[in-house]
């Protein structure tokens, strides 16, 4: 960070592990060749790319060759959704997802909807969960894809993917999981959940930005057509010169995550719980997402009695500066309250007055204690300055 501050926005992007940087710098210096070139430097780059598949595939119980490298989880989500649609050509069908999915899932589905596809966006309960029965009831004969995220990016809520996969097992629709926030941190096995397509990210796991992967089941293969063309790389599903250093960085990030889990998850969950206890003690602070179903690094709270903008401003300019977010970084530019929290039944004002605090490998106990103290002080000061019986309605205006 540019000045001393505490970074609690690991769900937006996480610091690259120095060991990952080392691998990337080495790759930038040594593996400059085009991995698709037939000469010796090209083949060495291709070998390195092949080895990097192993730890990434292992994180989800897949085989190395099941992965398609993409420029990130957003592209992987787009490829899964648009690719299934493309495989059905000009015959628009039906897709199902949750109303709380990431914009990189909701966006391509909305684009398909404009082209005649029918999209069902299922509601979630107050804990952010979707019942497998609800999902099963939404299936139609022409349902081509069901997309459910592993860990919600705003709340950390983990869907019961095994139960959802079971509910889908008898239906031919492809099952896609956006695992950008959870893969490498929480157990995920494509065989257990019966996933056909899984989107993976590196930069949420202390790896580099600009690289991700889509798992594509080989047997039975989902109906999936290429969305981009040219060059035939990645089983013909993703053209373009492979970005060797990014791929090697992603491989290292997943290898390190495997070394650290599950002890790292336990440490981070304990810190998160400590932070929650500090904030809960203030009163009129509500936790979003059922506590027993939230990923270790995430804490999303709605704070009553303060103006949301004032709280975020105080966090940003206070001493120490706190890098926190309101929800998805992708929606950071918009003043609208979180659609994820509203889908969980939070009234708009409380949904707007939310703080997403996300912890990572480099978050220390001291960071959490200092940040907890600072946030508590901001809330108390703002409440004293502008007492409000109810959360500010002005926020959503």
């Amino acid at each position, binding site marked *: 960070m540019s000045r001393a501050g505490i970074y609690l926005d690991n769900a937006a992007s996480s610091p690259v592990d120095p060991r990952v940087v080392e691998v990337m710098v080495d790759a930038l210096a040594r593996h400059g060749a085009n991995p698709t070139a*037939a000469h010796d430097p090209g083949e060495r780059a291709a070998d390195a790319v092949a080895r990097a598949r192993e730890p990434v595939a292992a994180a989800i119980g897949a085989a190395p060759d099941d992965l398609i490298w993409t420029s990130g989880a957003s592209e992987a989500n787009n490829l899964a959704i648009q690719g299934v649609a493309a495989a059905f050509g*000009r015959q628009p069908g039906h897709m199902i997802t949750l109303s709380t999915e990431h914009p990189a899932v909701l966006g391509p589905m909305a684009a398909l909807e404009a082209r005649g596809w029918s999209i069902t966006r299922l509601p979630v309960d107050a804990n952010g969960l979707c019942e497998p029965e609800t999902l099963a009831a939404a299936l139609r004969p022409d349902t081509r894809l069901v997309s459910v995220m592993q860990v919600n990016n705003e709340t950390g809520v983990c869907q019961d993917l095994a139960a959802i996969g079971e509910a889908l097992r008898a239906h031919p629709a492809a099952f896609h999981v956006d695992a950008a926030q959870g893969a490498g941190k929480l157990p995920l096995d494509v065989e257990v959940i019966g996933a056909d397509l899984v989107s993976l990210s590196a930069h949420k796991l202390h790896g580099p930005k600009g690289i991700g992967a889509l798992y594509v089941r080989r047997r039975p293969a989902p109906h999936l057509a290429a969305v981009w063309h040219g060059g035939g790389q990645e089983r013909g599903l993703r053209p373009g010169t492979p970005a060797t250093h990014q791929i090697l960085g992603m491989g290292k990030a997943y290898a390190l995550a495997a070394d650290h889990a599950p002890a790292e998850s336990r440490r981070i969950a304990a810190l998160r719980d400590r932070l929650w206890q500090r904030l809960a003690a203030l009163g009129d602070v509500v936790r979003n997402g059922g506590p027993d179903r939230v990923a270790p690094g995430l804490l999303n709270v709605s704070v009553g009695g303060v103006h949301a903008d004032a709280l975020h401003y105080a966090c*940003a300019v206070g001493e120490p500066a706190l890098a926190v977010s309101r929800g998805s970084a992708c929606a950071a530019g918009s003043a609208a309250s979180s659609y994820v929290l509203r889908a969980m039944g939070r009234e708009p004002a409380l949904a707007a007055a939310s703080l997403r605090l996300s912890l990572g490998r480099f978050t220390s106990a001291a960071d959490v204690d200092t940040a907890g103290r600072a946030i508590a002080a901001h809330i108390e000061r703002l409440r004293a300055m502008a007492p409000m019986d109810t959360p500010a309605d002005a926020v959503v205006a």
Partner: protein
Amino acid sequence: MNVYLDHNATTPLDERVLEAMLPHLRNQFGNAASRHAPGRTARAAIDAAREQVAALVGAHPGQVVFTAGGTEADNMALKGLSACRPGRLLYSAIEHPAVLETAEAMSVASATIAVDGQGRVDLADLDRQLAAGDVAVVAVMVANNETGAIQPVTEVADRVRAAGALLHVDGVQGAGKLVMRYPDTGAHTLAVSSHKIHGPKGVGALVLDKRVDIRPLLHGGGHESGLRGGTENTAAIVGFGAAAELAEAERAARADHTARLRDRLQAGLAAALPEAVVFAGDVARLPNTLQFAVPGFDGESLLMALDQFGFAVSSGSACASGSGEPSHVLLAMGVDPVVARGAIRVSLGKDNTEEEIDRFLSVLPSVARSQSMPGLNPAVMGG
């Protein structure tokens, strides 16, 4: 000692570019979409890089949309423009697979524009096809990646615009090698790539006139003015910016240097292997590119033999290597398929030396002849 002569496939990363990238791999890790200090730091770095890339192609920073590379930019242009403008798609027969295969995969009616024997777009054929009507989008590259032949882009643009159609130009091979100014090309969209100009792989850009309707290829999150979803790859974008600034500053010097080496190579080739055929030899080419064939020899075998001597060259596009098929570019030029199979592309870079060219020339004739003498040990021949 390895000699890298495949710069049209990819280029080594410039150390100055790596230096620029390092802070964004190490300490500056914010998501550019975040509003807090780390996020704003990333946003500022991306804005600066956008200016550098814009300057390379004479565009306004607001016209630059960052992508994951040239291939994505080509896909975005063709599919995105076609989605908003019904009608036929025309593309030159020598386009890169990122354009060629995209056009073939699209559901709109399309046709190729012929090229002449020197590998340049045949303007008369373009006129005929435009006159047939219903053309929405035309795609032509600035310069061919295999032969290096520079295309008459402004002449194409005049015709395409007169016909009321949109022009996409694949400028991947032209950037940093030629003076390529977006406003002068007449293109509506222009694709560029970082790793062809000593920048990192995994980043490119589509330069576009935002008054033209285009449908995004990647949806979600509202990044890049809503035209390209996904967290920006800050380190790579910063690297692209640094590479673009260096390419612009050093363009003339690099062009002079590689042209001198290329001409030395071509003269040496003519002397050592008089039977060698140079492709697009009579027209303006990229300063760094020489594609030739030695009749009677197989390009792939020659490539592999040269590789054993430490020379990295290509038979054409890296993407199609290993396929054993003769180059679609050479076939479109009317080259005999047997001759086309013998093609070797040498593409030079700023760091190649005269000594490397001379070494290549000293090895090439014997390697070429060894292809008809199986069993000869290259290590012995290398001496």
